[in-house]
């Protein structure tokens, strides 16, 4: 985990450029990629160093940040579920007026480039701090969240779900807490939105065929492979995110959400250990992958019979977890409806 000992001065002494930081990353990554938690601590460390360097660079050109802020990471970084390669999903929540926005967008730009050099691919969906949509003042974020939940479109609900997986990497944690609480309050008033969010993620891609076989990608560059992240991990991630909405849990990581829900009767006991095993399995199978493009893909023909059986078991567990959570959502909807 990032610790305060990384002062700007130390950063300066350790790494003068992003390229040097990248070199260090490449040297260290295989050493830390045996253990999922250790790997994610390492990612945090790299990202923090990049951000502190970016701040330092912009400070020398435009002065100190004009307001207090929180730099948030989302997606797998937000959930502490990054694999050996990961893409960028981040944003800013800053205090005060719009005038500060230009500064933070520029800082976002610098961070995006820095992270990119350090091996984090730019987000295709542009969920990044250099995008005005994800770089907002506290006040603007409040309006944005209200607008997303008023709009109720597939895209706006998806953005809400991206946001709920956020965690503060650097800066003021309260800024994010307030926004998450705002979402929880809104959802209490509009329980049907939870059902919609559930419906949108419920039908995961068909990954096991009628004959109990794993169904690989049929065409294109990943032909013959399964997308492990989508088929195995996502049902757990989605189910626990929905539970987090339901039980108003701010914690973004799936494992953290499991722990926060420890006493929840509707979660199966062995789901958490299944998810942890699956994360570790992915790491063991993909730690040799060379880039973000293929880090989530496993070639079916190269999996042992035992691996395949295990993967199918996880898929089953993920599906049944999802079903339980959906049942819970429907019950909640009925309770609200009858009141």
């Amino acid at each position: 985990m990032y610790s305060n000992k990384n002062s700007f001065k130390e950063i300066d002494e350790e790494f003068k450029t992003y390229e040097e930081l990248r070199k260090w990353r490449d040297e260290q990554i295989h050493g830390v990629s045996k253990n999922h938690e250790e790997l994610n601590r390492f990612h945090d460390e790299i990202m923090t160093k990049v951000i502190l360097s970016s701040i330092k660079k912009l400070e020398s050109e435009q002065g100190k940040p004009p307001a207090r802020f929180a730099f948030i990471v989302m997606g797998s970084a937000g959930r502490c579920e990054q694999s050996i390669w990961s893409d960028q999903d981040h944003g800013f929540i800053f205090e005060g007026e719009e005038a500060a926005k230009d500064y933070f967008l520029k800082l976002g730009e610098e961070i995006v480039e820095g992270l990119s050099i350090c091996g984090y691919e730019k987000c295709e969906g542009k969920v990044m701090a250099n995008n005005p949509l994800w770089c907002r003042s506290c006040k603007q974020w409040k309006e944005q969240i209200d607008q997303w939940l008023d709009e109720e479109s597939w895209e706006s609900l998806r953005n809400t779900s991206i946001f709920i997986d956020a965690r503060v990497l650097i800066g003021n944690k309260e800024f994010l807490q307030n926004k998450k609480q705002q979402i929880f309050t809104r959802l209490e008033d509009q329980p049907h939105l939870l059902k919609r969010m559930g419906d949108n993620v419920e039908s995961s891609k068909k990954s096991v065929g009628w004959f109990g076989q794993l169904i690989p990608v049929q065409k294109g560059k990943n032909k013959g492979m399964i997308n492990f992240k989508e088929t195995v991990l996502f049902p757990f991630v989605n189910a626990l995110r929905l539970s987090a909405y339901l039980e108003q849990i701010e914690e973004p990581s799936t494992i953290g959400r499991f722990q926060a829900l420890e006493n929840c009767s509707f979660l199966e006991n062995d789901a958490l250990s299944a998810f942890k095993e699956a994360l570790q399995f992915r790491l063991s199978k993909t730690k040799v992958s060379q880039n973000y493009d293929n880090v989530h893909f496993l070639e079916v023909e190269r999996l042992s019979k035992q691996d395949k059986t295990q993967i199918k078991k996880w898929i089953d567990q993920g599906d049944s977890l999802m079903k339980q959570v959906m049942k819970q959502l429907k019950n909640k909807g009925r309770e609200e409806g009858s009141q």
Partner: protein
Amino acid sequence: MKVDEIFLLNNVWIIVCFALVLLMQGGFILLEAGSTRMKNAGHIAGKTIFTVGIASLVFWAVGYGFIYGEGNAFIGMSDFFYGDFDSVVDGLAGSVDFMFQLAFAAIALTIAFGGFAERAKLSAYIVFAILFSALIYPVVAHWIWGDGWLAGLGKQDFAGSTVVHLTGAMAALAATIILKPRIGKYNKDGSSNDLAGHNQVYTALGVLILWVGWFGFNGGSTLEVDGAFFGYVALTTQLAAAAGAIAAMLIVSMITGKADVPTMLNGALAGLVAITASTAFVAPWAAVIIGLIAGFIVHFSMVFFDRAKIDDPIFALSVHGVAGIWGTLSTGFFATTALAEMNGGSAGLFYGGGFTQLGVQFIGVSVSGIYAFVVAFVILKVMDKVMGGIRVTEEEEIVGLDLSEHGSYGYPENIKESNDKIEKPGA
């Protein structure tokens, strides 16, 4: 003089069926163009028309004579440059019978050209059209439909699962082996890429036109209206096509998780190809089984050829070859006693006929298939040597045959930009 009404009706029915079978070429144009890439669309559509022209002239000159002329068990040797206005053959005006048979010869040729798609020289199409129409199709047709040795054994092939479809497919197999896969189809590590066809709507419409045309193909093969037996033929044909489409959609969904449209379309065609031999010999329930099995095997066959590194862009080998073999064998299992008595041969295994008919079917399909493959392979090998290759250059293939062989694109507006990019280096 009193008009013979049945004679007249027979002739009207068969000439209508000739038109339906000729219209199947329109189905092939859409099927093939839709299954291939945009840069070859004009070429693939246009070549179908002129090779029908070649097939027609060759059939008139020698094809009909080799099939139906008087000769020996191997080949007919009279009636070349066919035609007069007063001969009568099997209760039909000779010219009507000739036209109907000609349309079948042209279909077999178009099936063979499935193996040429997207990479053969235009000159190779011309030369092979002549040689296939003269030396390959008529020989197999004579054996089974003329006075040949397989007809003598009682081979059942009502409308040509073997004669038309398998013969065409075996020539396509020889061609696709000699031409080798299209550029970009296989990677260095042996894995294959999906060079998707450019228009599934064309492909689907092509299949429907073929399906409709098939009522001429199978229905007309009754060669008469007496007893309106063509209605029964239409019934079994429809059931098999329907079952083929459903079976293919089902199996591909079960195995890959996706209801792949091209596979489903091939299932309908496989059902049609399979029932072509057996349509007049089997019960409706058997037609459903025959179609279902055809739909299942077409999927596995498509996967097999892809893995075997045999690039078959139009799926001619699976649809016409594998389903043609199955269809031919199917009468050996399902031919009923009554229908075999009526239409030739004997009852199948499931109707107490033992293995006799199945054996005849097996010999027929094996020898015909081997003959078509070997002769086509030799012809194409010789052409390859003599013509300095039968495949276009890599550059021509990448640019597309529309431009390289014909000088203009099937879709000029849509391809202009990439065309510019390709032309620049040479400019």
